[in-house]
């Protein structure tokens, strides 16, 4: 079957994901664009005797090289790999969203235009004469909507038509008016450049007069400095005459061209504000807005946590005396159900294997490793669904905007609301979500400090320590741990901001976000976004977590001379722990206990919840509270352990994610050192305070 490759281009929020999903359904492959961690999604659809391959380009407002996304989009369109480019225009805000169409038309003439949300344009007060508009643009225009899946078929027909027709000269071109002579002079100059073989010269000239950084660095790399200098001097000349910077002048001309095209073909009437909009406006009021946002986010994540772990609903139920119901919420939470399944599997397997090394490898290593991954899975899935709902409904930018004034105080912008909120569940997706900020300094600070936010794995450990307390109040200890973690998060960020400011590296966190109208989320789009995230987690993070738990099994079961052992006290892990144990002896732990605890903390590096299981294995006591009292750990020592576990090194999955996001060993190691030092200092302080107050 013949194949057509279609590049799918559109601005953010125009409904690109929804349309892509409508066209290709489940046939989606996710990879990365070469050399960068930007997702590349592809899907297929058969139609009219062709197999049509859709490549979803990153959503961008234009094609100037200010971000990786924009460079990826335009390089793909030019590369020739795309036979046809499908450009999406939002029919409810045509003026703004046609800007990208004009930029694409400067690169290629094999274009089909889809006007999305066509069912909503009337209620947005936009009336479009598609026949006239199509004539003026010169490319086929198809109104499409999620509610009318048939519209996709005529879109596919047009794609085949344009592919078979080939390039066209009937398309509108932007008239840059008084800038045209300057553009033509640059065109003359770039004809002598090697770049002219890869890009249309008119486009090169247009982008060079705009001061496109990617093209300028390409010229420099080729050693064509004279061409670059000539282009720059023409640009300066034009700027002097027009009294405007070139990016401003060019964008103005393009928008004027858009207005010229839509004149007569499109009527926009202002409509009165609707109830929904008024509600959203409330979120922008000072004080009320951020409080409402915080309430909304915390309610959402509380529900997510409760479904997954039973917390915090179980604590509430317990405190009002309904401990049966509390136990029920815990036992039937997703992560408990999953781990029970794996416990059962372990029992079945261990009773059917006789060889002890093999049994231990399969049960303690592999099943345990897979079990950890699977226990994470429902959490990642539910968080993905919540985020997809917020994203698809348009609430995400509203919340980010309303929280911005608060986050600014610790050097973050509204973009960081979600990375921080998710991190209370799990730091791994939190670190990934930090991509939302376009400010590099802000991202670095997020990578360094997000792991201070206590995730729920740490919560499990803290809970166990709290129950082992003798005279102190468990809830107080938990509150103290959370307060310590959050204060450290705020204090470290404030200090980083001061440090950055001293070195003159600080860039005020800024916000620039489009706020699309709020609408009910579309279930299939939500499901689809969430499912893609989950798949991503399964393939990437899961492999790492799995390998890490295998590594921890080896650390627990092999001696330094690489012989298998059942005795933990002879293992590699224990010999590492004995090196670290002097750090624990000042806290009143005797030498053996210091080794055990050090060992448990080292294992906790692989996954924080493993601290408990290790203590359980070492003491032979299933219940953590019992195990800790068998070890003879005092209340003050428990306080130390609680605070330390909450703050010390991010788990291996988080570390791997920090590295894969930052691509910097320095940042990754800094985050470990930062956390270790702060954790030790604060927990020793807490130990000192508690042992002075509550002397046995």
């Amino acid at each position, binding site marked *: 079957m013949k194949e057509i490759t279609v590049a799918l281009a559109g601005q953010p929020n125009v409904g690109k994901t929804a349309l892509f999903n409508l066209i290709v359904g489940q046939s989606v492959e996710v990879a990365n664009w070469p050399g960068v961690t930007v997702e590349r999604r592809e899907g297929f659809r058969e139609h009219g005797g062709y197999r049509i391959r859709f490549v979803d380009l990153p959503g961008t407002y234009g094609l100037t090289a200010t971000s990786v996304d924009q460079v990826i989009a335009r390089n793909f369109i030019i590369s020739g790999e795309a036979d046809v480019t499908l450009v999406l225009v939002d029919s409810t*805000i*045509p003026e703004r969203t046609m800007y990208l169409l004009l930029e694409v038309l400067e690169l290629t003439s094999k274009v089909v235009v889809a006007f999305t949300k066509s069912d909503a344009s009337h209620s947005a007060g936009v009336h479009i004469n598609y026949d006239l508009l199509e004539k003026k643009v010169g490319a086929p225009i198809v109104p499409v909507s999620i509610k009318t899946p048939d519209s996709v078929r005529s879109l596919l027909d047009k794609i085949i038509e344009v592919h078979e027709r080939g390039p066209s000269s009937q398309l509108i071109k932007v008239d840059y008016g008084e800038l045209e002579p300057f553009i033509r002079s640059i065109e003359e100059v770039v004809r002598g450049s090697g770049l002219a073989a890869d890009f249309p010269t008119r486009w090169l000239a247009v982008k060079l007069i705009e001061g496109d950084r990617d093209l300028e660095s390409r010229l420099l790399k080729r050693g064509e400095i004279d061409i670059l200098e000539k282009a720059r001097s023409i640009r300066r000349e034009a700027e002097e005459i027009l009294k405007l910077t070139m990016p401003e002048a060019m964008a103005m001309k393009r928008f004027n061209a858009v207005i010229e095209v839509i004149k007569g073909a499109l009527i926009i009437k202002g409509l009165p504000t609707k109830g929904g909009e008024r509600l959203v406006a409330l979120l922008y009021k000072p004080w009320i807005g951020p409080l409402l946002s915080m309430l909304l986010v915390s309610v959402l994540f509380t529900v997510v946590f409760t479904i997954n772990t039973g917390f915090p609903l179980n604590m509430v139920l317990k405190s009002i005396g309904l401990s049966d119901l509390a136990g029920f919420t815990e036992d039937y939470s997703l992560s408990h159900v999953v781990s029970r399944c794996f416990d059962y599997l372990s029992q079945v397997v261990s009773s059917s294997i006789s060889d002890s090394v093999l049994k231990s490898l399969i049960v303690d290593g592999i099943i345990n490793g897979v079990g950890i991954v699977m226990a994470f899975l429902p959490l990642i899935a539910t968080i993905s669904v919540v985020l997809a709902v917020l994203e698809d409904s348009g609430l995400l930018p509203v919340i980010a905007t309303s929280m911005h004034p608060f986050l600014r105080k610790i050097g973050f912008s*509204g973009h960081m609301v979600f990375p921080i909120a998710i991190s209370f569940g799990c730091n791994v997706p939190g670190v990934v979500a930090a991509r939302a900020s376009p400010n590099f300094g802000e991202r670095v600070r997020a990578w360094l400090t997000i792991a201070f936010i206590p995730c729920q794995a740490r919560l499990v450990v803290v809970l166990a320590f709290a129950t082992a307390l003798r005279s102190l109040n468990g809830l107080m200890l938990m509150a103290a741990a959370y307060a310590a973690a959050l204060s450290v998060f705020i204090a470290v960020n404030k200090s980083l901001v001061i440090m950055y400011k001293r070195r003159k590296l600080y860039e*005020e966190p800024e916000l620039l976000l489009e706020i699309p109208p709020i609408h009910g989320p579309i279930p299939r789009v939500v499901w689809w976004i969430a499912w893609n995230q989950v798949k991503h987690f399964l393939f990437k993070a899961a492999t790492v977590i799995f390998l890490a738990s295998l590594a921890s099994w080896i650390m627990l079961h092999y001696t330094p001379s690489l012989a298998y052992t059942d005795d933990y006290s002879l293992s590699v892990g224990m010999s590492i722990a004995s090196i670290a144990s002097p750090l624990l002896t000042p806290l009143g732990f005797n030498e053996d206990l210091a080794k055990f605890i050090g060992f448990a903390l080292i294992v906790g590096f692989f996954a924080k919840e493993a601290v408990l299981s290790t203590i359980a294995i070492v003491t032979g006591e299933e219940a953590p509270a019992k195990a800790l009292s068998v070890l003879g750990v005092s209340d003050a020592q428990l306080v130390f352990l609680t605070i330390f576990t909450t703050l010390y090194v991010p788990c291996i999955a988080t570390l791997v994610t920090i590295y894969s996001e930052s691509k910097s060993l320095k940042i990754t190691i800094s985050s470990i050192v930062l956390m270790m030092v702060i954790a030790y200092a604060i927990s020793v302080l807490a130990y000192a305070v508690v042992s002075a107050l509550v002397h046995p």
Partner: protein
Amino acid sequence: MLNLADAPRGCKAKVIMVGAPGTWGVRLLQMGITPGAEIEVVENSGGLILIRARGSLISIGRGIARRILVELISH
């Protein structure tokens, strides 16, 4: 003429100059905030500024807004 950060809530204004440097500047222009564009200030309080430009609602941080020069058309 005044900068966008000082434009009162509810006013309509015309953009004169987009002075924000680098990425932010280009992003603003691509979002339709170009010289000559008419915008409406929907909200301006505390740390945030909301405007309507070319049909879409956009939230802008105060630092960026300070670099955008506008001329009031009406209150």
